[in-house]
């Protein structure tokens, strides 16, 4: 599964979803196709899902909301773990990703 535009690219490989570029979509409806990739992976109930954000330069608050909602969805599944990988090279990640850990303390957050 892959979504590719001039601005961003989202794709899955195994149980990891990768994000790249700039995501500044205007509403939850606009984020729905991306959410669908994530939900599909969750429906397959892998032992752990990883979100690799190390290529995601910019994300607006509607996008942060997408990740927050997904974190809560995974939290509801006792048998699915969640890992989120970010980078200190992209300032929004160090600032906003720790909020996900507050929502789901078992989340494995790596900002390296």
């Amino acid at each position, binding site marked *: 599964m892959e979504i590719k535009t001039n601005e961003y690219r989202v794709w899955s490989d195994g149980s990891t979803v990768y994000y790249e570029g700039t995501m*500044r979509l*205007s509403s939850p409806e606009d984020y729905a196709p991306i959410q669908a990739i994530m939900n599909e992976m969750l429906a397959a109930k892998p032992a752990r899902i990883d979100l690799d954000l190390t290529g995601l330069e*910019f994300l607006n608050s509607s996008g*942060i909301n997408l990740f*927050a909602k997904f974190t*809560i969805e995974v939290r509801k599944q006792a048998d699915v773990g969640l890992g989120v990988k970010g980078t200190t090279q992209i300032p929004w990640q160090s600032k*906003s990703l720790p909020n996900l850990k507050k*929502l789901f303390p078992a989340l494995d957050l790596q900002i390296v």
Partner: protein
Amino acid sequence: MQSHYGIEFPEAADSTEGVKLALHSGLPPTWSNCGATADFLGNLYARAAARAGKNVKETRHGINYLANEILENAVKFRHPASGAIEIEARFQQGRFELQVRNYAEPAVAANFQTLLQELTSRDPGELMIERIEANAMDDTQGGSGLGILTMMNDYGAEIGWRFTQTQDGEPVQVDTYLTVQLVQ
């Protein structure tokens, strides 16, 4: 009639470092203009940061996120017939200031004020987690207010809002002022 939320607005500042942009209602700004304008401000002041020996990446990314969020709100809530948006920005000694003026329908402005009353009354970090949990329970909610809370909590931005209405039924003038010490 005027109402005010959040921090006070500054006295009119005369600045050589400032940028003024007016997007007129004959050519109303679109969603993609928010990102493009935020990119423009971020890139412009990244150069200023480089000249001043300050962290370029923090400057560019911070301004990009904050300007984009404020402008997205201005476009989202703009009056269908009075869609003009005015933007004024400054970056001095690592402090970013942004002032945006737009016009909203009275009912839209009233809803926004109800939201602001709540957002400015409590700790933004706590409120953010609460609102995310509430949004997750209700799929129709698009995370309203989350942008404002991330700016205050994640970026340490201080924000003020001023609503001015000259006559009943007329568009409400919405002024937003954001200030933040982005880099030292």
